[in-house]
């Protein structure tokens, strides 16, 4: 019965280990492994994943091809941005850039790019930004766009017909028709093709103070979010502020049956089909609304930009380049190799000192390392040096758990127990210290994570998060994996050689294998 259980466990552990190794196998093996062996190139793994999206549970395949590495380990994109004051010459550049820095930081964090760097060029109108693992074009869009959202309506004539631009180019800033003729078209006969020639003017409404105002992103609450429509298409949800709601109410009331457009930085927002997004107003809305027709990526980007607020000045990308690791590519590679060698040395030490159990623990350590790395990759966790430090600490704790158990086993053998009883007692007795020390580490992680989150110290947050994952897996590894390995080995002829199990214990009256029928001194462990 017990043997059957252990064999099942072993099977599960092996499946998990193989799965983890395949998942974490690097897509650039030469970066991490000696290059004289032609290593296969890792493809990562597509994993069935579940996410809860707007109340609906969705299944999809999540692909994790490359490990997400931070700026310090992998580098990324470096952008130099310059404040463009040509439109607003009287703006205070210094104050504007300080605000812009905060807004960019918010946007970058919301995008899930951790450990980015933003620097001000002293006495100038420039910002230098480094972002890890994000392609330059996307990076430029994310940080460079002003994100001033405007609600616009078609220019109308006295009959409420829509003015379109025929025979020329429609312009948006200021609204007009360059080299063509403004022609009224009844709203009912407006075709898809004609929509791109509509002349859009700012939608205005009278505020509570009696002044006419443009309806802009200023009146939006910064809680927009992307959800999925009934048919699974992305929808951007927005909510108006207290001042904004009556304005939108007036505008939509006036525009029933007519289209309304959304403009970002003076340009119309286009849908996935590249047509201008211009939904027809069907009802009067005041406080809440949605924008449909965007691609998922665009909806997400727009949502982040709207929530982060509009930049006080437009920022122009004047330089854009890829940079390697801040710790230095060469230095990182050397350290990776050194880390691998160190892991091998630890395994060697464990095997020499604790013999067969040590070798089994080393095997467990290998399983542990692959599982933790697989979790990092699939989650995905952006790994930085802080994360690596937490990982190394958790490896130390995993090894410590095994050392605790083996030292305990030795003591029990010295006390004259049989091998089986000693090993079982070793696990039982060591459990309370493994449990208490790890729980204390987890509590510390929770608090550090919370603080890191509150104060924007992403370093502390990343450290706490990776350490928590490491500790959880290490408890599983030290107890389940090593114990299963040991229990299965005890049943084999290997158990007859006591010298393979312990070095410095005088076998007083140790039975190498338990004599059937004669119970060992105490197998229950625990309290005495």
């Amino acid at each position, binding site marked *: 019965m017990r043997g059957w259980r252990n064999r099942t466990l072993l099977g599960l552990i092996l499946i998990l280990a193989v799965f983890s190794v395949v998942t974490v196998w690097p897509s650039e093996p030469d970066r991490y492994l000696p290059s004289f062996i032609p290593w296969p190139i890792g493809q990562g793994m597509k994993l069935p994943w579940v996410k809860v999206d707007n109340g609906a549970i969705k299944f999809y395949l999540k692909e994790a091809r490359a490990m997400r590495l931070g700026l310090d380990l992998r580098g990324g994109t470096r952008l130099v941005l310059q404040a463009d004051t040509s439109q607003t010459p009287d703006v205070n550049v210094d104050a504007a850039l300080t605000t812009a820095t905060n807004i960019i930081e918010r946007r970058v964090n919301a995008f899930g790019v951790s450990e980015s760097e933003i*620097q001000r060029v002293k006495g100038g109108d420039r910002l230098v930004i480094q972002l890890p693992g994000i392609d330059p074009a996307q990076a430029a869009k994310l940080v460079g766009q002003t994100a001033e959202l405007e609600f616009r309506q078609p220019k109308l004539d006295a009959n409420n017909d829509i003015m379109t631009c025929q025979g020329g180019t429609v312009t948006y800033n200021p609204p007009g028709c360059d080299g063509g003729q403004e022609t009224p078209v009844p709203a009912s006969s407006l075709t898809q093709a004609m929509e791109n020639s509509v002349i859009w003017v700012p939608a205005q409404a009278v505020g509570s103070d009696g002044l006419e105002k443009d309806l802009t992103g200023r009146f939006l609450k910064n809680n927009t979010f992307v959800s999925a429509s009934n048919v699974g298409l992305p929808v951007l949800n927005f909510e108006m502020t207290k001042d904004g709601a009556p304005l939108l109410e007036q505008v939509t009331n006036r525009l029933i049956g007519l289209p309304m457009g959304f403009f970002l930085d003076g340009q119309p927002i286009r849908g996935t089909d590249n047509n201008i997004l211009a939904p027809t107003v069907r009802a009067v809305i005041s406080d809440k609304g949605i924008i449909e027709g965007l691609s998922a990526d665009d909806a997400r980007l727009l949502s982040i930009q709207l929530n982060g607020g509009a930049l006080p000045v437009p920022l122009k990308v004047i330089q854009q380049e890829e940079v390697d690791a801040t710790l230095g590519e060469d230095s990182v590679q050397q350290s990776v190799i050194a880390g691998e060698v160190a892991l091998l040395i630890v395994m060697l030490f464990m095997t020499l000192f604790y013999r067969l159990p040590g070798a089994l623990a080393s095997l467990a350590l290998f399983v542990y390392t692959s599982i933790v790395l697989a979790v990092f990759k699939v989650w995905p966790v952006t790994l930085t040096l802080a994360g690596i430090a937490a990982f190394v600490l958790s490896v130390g704790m995993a090894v410590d758990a095994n050392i605790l158990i083996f030292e305990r086993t030795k003591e029990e053998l010295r006390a004259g127990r049989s091998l089986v009883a000693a090993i079982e007692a070793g696990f039982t007795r060591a459990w309370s210290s493994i449990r208490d020390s790890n*729980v204390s580490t987890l509590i510390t992680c929770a608090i550090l994570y919370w603080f890191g989150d509150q104060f924007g110290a992403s370093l502390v947050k990343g450290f706490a998060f990776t350490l928590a994952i490491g500790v959880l897996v290490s408890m599983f590894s030290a107890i389940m994996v090593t114990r299963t390995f040991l229990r299965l080995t005890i049943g084999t002829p290997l158990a007859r050689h006591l010298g393979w199990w312990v070095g410095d214990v005088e076998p007083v009256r140790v039975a190498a294998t338990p004599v059937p029928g004669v119970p060992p001194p105490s197998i229950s462990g625990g309290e005495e």
Partner: protein
Amino acid sequence: MFDFVKRRDFYYLLSLLVLVPGIISLIVPPSLKPGIEFTGGTTFTVRFAQAVHQDALRAALSELGHPEAIVQGTGENTFLVRTRELKGAAAAPEIGPAPPSERDAIEAGLQQRFGDFLDNNGNVSNRFIDFASVSGTVSEEIGRNAGFAVIAASVAILLYISWAFRAVPKPFLWGAAAVVALLHDAVLVLGAFSIFGKVFGIEINTMFLTGLLTVMGFSVHDTIVVFDRIRENLRRGEGRDFSECVNVSLNQTLARSVNTSFTVVLVLVAMLLMGGVTIRDFLLVLLIGIISGTYSSIFIASQLLVTWEERDIQRLFRKLLPRRRQPAPVETEG
């Protein structure tokens, strides 16, 4: 069996001797030398006509007095360099020859070692590209906020240990002892780097902060393992009294403490010897902290429990301030 608890006064004194110089150094400003991540500095791009290795450039900058330089490759033989603020880095030369600035010295030094530079268009040049002063990337607040986080975590550890060890008498004391050991390790590392900053110019960066957090995690972990053994032996009634019980426990956990620390030190030394130069300070933090963490579990945290139980403090007071009617305590050692 080694008698660990007998010489506990000596261990306290030893720790004090090690800690005091660091504490003094921390009190004397500047307590810690903030790195360029906090203070900002100068950034420039340098493009070489010949192939230059990143390591060689870093070593050259170090020789030219900038060991703090962050060097990132950005293309073929092109590097983005960040250093602390270069003096006399005023931009283009005005009328007449400008006085030699730090920038000139570095430009000359690098050209002497690696040959000509190239400008943005690929023409031979003798100047850096895009030379500018920049602010820090990390606000100095992160240090303060991390400090708050650590204080909160210490309180949580204190409460947790008090709860986890509720079966022993005065569990709060055990929590307090673990936190004292934790602070011991943190102050030791901070003090050491304060001294290194003053003597070798080693600066504090975010890596240091990471290292400090790691050390604190290890310290508590190690202490709890030792405490767990004392708790178990107390339950079994091991030893004649409390101090003997602690002593037995320390002897039993010694092999584990030494082996665990040894494996971690093994990893750190291997990485110090073979790893990249850019993480050397970080590894140094861990090395000092891990050794201190192991020491403090045995020689501080556990000893504090004995000190309390044996009423050492009261005895010390009695010794220092003898009362008129003295019961004459002959024995002074537990």
